[in-house]
């Protein structure tokens, strides 16, 4: 049997690397001061950081007013006003959802985060986990709408803040993802009609800005409906998002499909697998693994793009933050508001990015050497 043998026969003894190539000083020399222009850049960057960070920290923490500061107190001193965030926290997070019922959107967020965290574990990538998701979404619907189980009914025009952002993006991505797979497969299909349909759809949607798609969904869509029938605004925005995300994700997935060698298709065909078996068991698992970076890119930009719903009058996280600023008592605390929601967006996006890197590593570790 041909196994490579790493054991060395009698040979040279192991040596340590020369002392000036290891250790922190060597690292500094090799990475920050290895050439004269690199040295200048290093110094410049340090100077820049030195002049920017202290004033920022000063504003952020040292001169900042605490969580219980009133707006009058804040207006006197120069630091950040965290009293604003504290005062408006529930409005920014949950929008106009009835105040006493705000445990419901809170529970919604918790359910989504739990579902998302569990979905990160590959042991749960089984068909039955779809049922868990379905149950979770049903619970979310009951919590948000109410009207059953003794919960008061809350119209979805009152929804807002983080739950709205999460609902739009998670449901949007969950529906768009399978649609994108079908579109990508359709685009590579050898049935001309299917192919033309998918190409047209993808190119059409990718050719218009999301904003105009949202406008169309909210202004034009009702024109096509018979009189008296109205589809709710949130649903229309959700549909527009799904259509948009599906087109972009389809292209990411198509890139993955193109990376799969012809031999994989032939081996699957040769074993007698049908088209869908071949795709599900052989081609897609590999293609999706290849497509993780561009897919996550789409996920992240899509998560942030949900903030565009503000233009059709829905108040997602960004919308509620803006609305909070319009309170005359707290006008002008933009920095605190945007920094706060910026951090929330960042936590979500950075987690996605980190998780995708881990997933990529795991998949690569098992598949290839």
């Amino acid at each position: 049997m041909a196994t490579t043998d790493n054991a060395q026969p009698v040979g040279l003894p192991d040596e340590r690397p020369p002392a000036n190539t290891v250790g922190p000083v060597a690292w500094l020399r090799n990475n920050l001061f290895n050439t004269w222009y690199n040295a200048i850049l290093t110094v410049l960057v340090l100077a820049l950081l030195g002049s920017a960070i202290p004033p920022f920290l000063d504003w952020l923490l040292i001169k900042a007013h605490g969580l219980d500061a009133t707006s009058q107190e804040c207006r006197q001193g120069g630091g950040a006003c965290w009293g604003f965030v504290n005062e408006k926290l529930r409005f920014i997070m949950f929008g106009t959802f009835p105040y006493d019922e705000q445990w419901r959107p809170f529970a919604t967020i918790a359910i989504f985060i739990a579902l998302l965290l569990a979905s990160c574990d590959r042991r749960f990538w089984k068909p039955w986990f779809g049922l868990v998701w379905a149950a979770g979404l049903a619970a979310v619907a009951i919590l948000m709408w109410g009207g059953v189980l003794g919960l008061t009914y809350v119209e979805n025009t009152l929804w807002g803040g983080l739950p709205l952002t999460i609902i739009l993006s998670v449901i949007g991505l969950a529906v768009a993802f399978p649609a994108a797979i079908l579109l990508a497969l359709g685009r590579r299909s050898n049935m001309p009609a299917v192919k033309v349909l998918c190409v047209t759809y993808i190119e059409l949607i990718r050719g218009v800005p999301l904003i105009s798609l949202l406008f169309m969904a909210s202004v034009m869509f009702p024109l096509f409906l018979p009189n008296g029938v109205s589809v709710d605004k949130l649903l229309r925005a959700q549909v527009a998002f799904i259509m948009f995300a599906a087109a972009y994700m389809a292209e990411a997935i198509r890139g993955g499909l193109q990376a799969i060698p012809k031999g994989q298709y032939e081996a699957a065909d040769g074993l007698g697998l049908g088209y869908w078996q071949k795709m599900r068991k052989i081609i897609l698992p590999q293609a999706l693994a290849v497509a993780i970076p561009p897919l996550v890119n789409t996920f992240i930009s899509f998560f942030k793009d949900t903030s565009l719903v503000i233009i059709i009058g829905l108040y997602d996280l960004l919308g509620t933050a803006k609305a909070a600023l319009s309170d005359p008592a707290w006008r002008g605390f933009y920095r605190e508001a945007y920094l706060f929601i910026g951090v929330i967006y960042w936590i979500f996006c950075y987690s996605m990015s980190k998780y995708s890197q881990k997933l990529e590593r795991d998949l690569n570790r098992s598949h290839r050497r």
Partner: protein
Amino acid sequence: MAQVAQQAQHTLSGEEIIRCTGVNKWYGEFHVLKNIDLSVQKGERIVVCGPSGSGKSTMIRCLNRLEEHQKGTIVVDGIELTNNLKNIELVRREVGMVFQHFNLFPHLTVLENCTLAPIWVRKKPKAEAEDIAMRYLKRVRIAEQANKYPGQLSGGQQQRVAIARSLCMSPKVMLFDEPTSALDPEMVKEVLDVMIGLAEDGMTMLCVTHEMGFAKSVADRVIFMDRGEIVEQDTPDRFFTNPKSERTKLFLSQILNH
């Protein structure tokens, strides 16, 4: 000489498993297969050889319709290959194929590579499919690697897994397309040994290869192809010692001098 004796013992059933009549194929304007007539009996071992680009791969790939022929008929195991997808899938179940570049599924373990088609195509229970897979992996002497991924194996090992993967479908015919030509020289033998073992067990085999030693020792018939035609076919003794056509002689002189 022992091999000749062994060959003499090998008797064919006389039952036909593959029949090609007047098969023609074009790639655009290019005529790759010209009037191929071929009949293969159950248990027959056929080696196909010929210069590169002569259409060997194309011909055997037509037999499980990885390529489509445009004229003539191909009947495999009683089923004619047409555009009928159901029939194509039925034929592919019965015809195993081993490729030059192995084409193992890199995201599945060796064992999963072997059980996938039995489970999904033959609808075998998982445990049974695994039993069968382990049996064939033992047979190609690689059972201890069952839980590794293909990327962790050497070329020769991967090709043996590919053979086991095909065998797990209990095919009636095995097609080999230059199974050893992508291998480092020291790994060729381990794969050929497995193939010889298969031949001895009576598997019907069509094998495109330039391993003339293999052809001499196990083939019932050697087919020589050139420019899309079957130029000559004969028993290995006569093919190698007494080729009829000039093209065959030229080819043999080139290949045997290397």
